[in-house]
């Protein structure tokens, strides 16, 4: 088993509130892990702990076998971890292509360090997510679905080994969701390991090799999608009552 990401007994406390409680899991290389759970379960917090936006209270995170939970966020980016934000974080004053170019300039270990090269790469990633026609527009002029595409392109431009996607499908219609699913599969086919936080159940089911269910910061289920989704605890967590 080639684990690209290992999370061991990870705990995060905020002023007495336990956001993540003793979570342990492993992600194998080139697989897709779906991270689900009701709102407020701690999914984004978990991703932030892996990406370095937050520091854990207890526990450890290993990336490709090395401990990373003490490293600052930018170092983890250099190692090959990229993430999108649920509340989107563009660089508002920059154009769409420049937004993505930042990722190409800094994230890729073997990427271009020259501006022109980075912008060329940015265009390629924009084409990949279907946003190249808006390359010259300001990032803050984009609408919701396009912003999600931009988030994705920025992360991809970093040529990550591990991609953490936080609700990239929220607010999209069926057609757009299908597009995103196929993009994610293409990314996986390029050898990238992915963690996907999602509420769109059909998408999660079709994408994930493994599912991890969080509730109140605790892992309550883990395994193959069809097994996990039929478990009582999972259904109760979402619906609040047993299915008869």
């Amino acid at each position, binding site marked *: 088993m080639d684990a690209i990401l290992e999370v061991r007994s990870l705990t995060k406390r905020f002023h007495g509130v336990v956001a993540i409680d003793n979570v342990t899991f492993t992600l194998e290389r080139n697989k897709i892990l779906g991270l689900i759970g009701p709102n407020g379960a701690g999914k984004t917090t978990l991703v932030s702990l892996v*990406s*370095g*936006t937050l520091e854990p209270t207890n526990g450890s995170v290993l990336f490709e076998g090395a401990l990373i939970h003490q490293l*600052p*966020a*930018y*170092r983890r*980016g*250099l190692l090959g971890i*990229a*993430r999108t*934000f649920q509340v989107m*974080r*563009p*660089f*508002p*004053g*920059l154009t769409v292509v*420049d937004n993505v*170019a*930042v*990722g190409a*300039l*800094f*994230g890729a270990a073997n990427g271009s*360090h*020259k*501006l022109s090269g*980075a912008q060329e790469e940015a265009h390629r990633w924009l084409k990949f997510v279907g946003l190249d026609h808006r390359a010259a527009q300001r990032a803050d002029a984009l609408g919701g679905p396009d912003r999600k595409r931009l988030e994705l392109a*920025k992360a991809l431009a*970093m040529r990550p080994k591990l991609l953490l996607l936080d609700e990239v499908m929220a607010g999209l219609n069926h057609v757009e969701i299908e597009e995103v699913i196929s993009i994610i599969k293409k990314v996986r086919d390029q050898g990238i390991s992915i963690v996907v936080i999602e509420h769109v159940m059909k998408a999660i089911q079709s994408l994930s090799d493994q599912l991890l269910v969080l509730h109140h910061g605790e892992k309550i289920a883990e395994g193959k999608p069809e097994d996990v989704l039929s478990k009582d605890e999972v259904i109760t967590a979402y619906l609040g009552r047993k299915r008869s």
Partner: protein
Amino acid sequence: MKLGLKLALAALVVGLLATVPWWGSPVMVQFGINALILATLAQSWNIIGGYTGYPSFGNSVFYGLGGYGVAIAMVQFHLPFAVGLLLGVFLAVLFAFLLGLPVLRLRGHYFAIATLGLAEVMTAIVSNLEIAGRNVGLILPLLKGDTVFFELSLALLAVTTITVAWISRSRFGFGLIAIRENEEAAAVMAVNTTLYKILAFALCSAFAAIAGGIHAYWITYLDPSSAFDITLNVKMIIMAVFGGAGTIFGPVLGAFALSAISEILASKVTSLASIFFGLVIVAAVVFMPRGFADLVRRFRQQRWRYFQENIKAHRV
């Protein structure tokens, strides 16, 4: 206008300006030196305030350290001016690294206040140092003729502006802009935000220090309150913002425009330069808060409504 063309034009202007001491009046040359030094300060602020988005209210420290570097080297140790400049730059950059590290962790107005506090502390410390002449200050050796200082200031402004131009097209600059636009996102996208912020701070400190050194030698006198003049901070910020923060030529234009306006108004009613400067600041912040560049861009569409729109957007 392409950048290459703009730079060529700028080079032409620099060449023309360099001839001013030979045909301009002494008053004009003196005005020029002051304006050039202020422009350099505004441009150096542009690096940390305009491009990186950290509005430092303490760049006067670097200016003062530059001045005192020159003064101490020349007066206490009888070293040449160039060595004094190096000393000043060294002190300023050291300060930027040592104190930049803790202070650049602060955001927004807390950063502004911290830098203002640092400026006050330095003023107070220096006024207690024997080697700096305490409160009385130091008197520097006299170098006759303004021409040398004019050319030096012009050269300094040119170098500073070229540096800013390089920043705007470089990977380093992109990192700074990313930090300005969204620091958390920049960190996640593998920008070493701490290092970049400190480098930007150090870079602007060096230019401000040289400006301070040239100015001290020119007026041959230095004391804590004039070297670390707190009002300089706001002047350079206003000039950079008025001209257009985060642009290559904005701060230069802003500095010259504001200096010229103050000078012209002052010459009509003698010695009232200060009050007009204050009034101009108030008017500029109310009517054109995004600077001159923005005004020019939107004036074509909106005409006089531009000013109205700005007020409507910002008032209650």
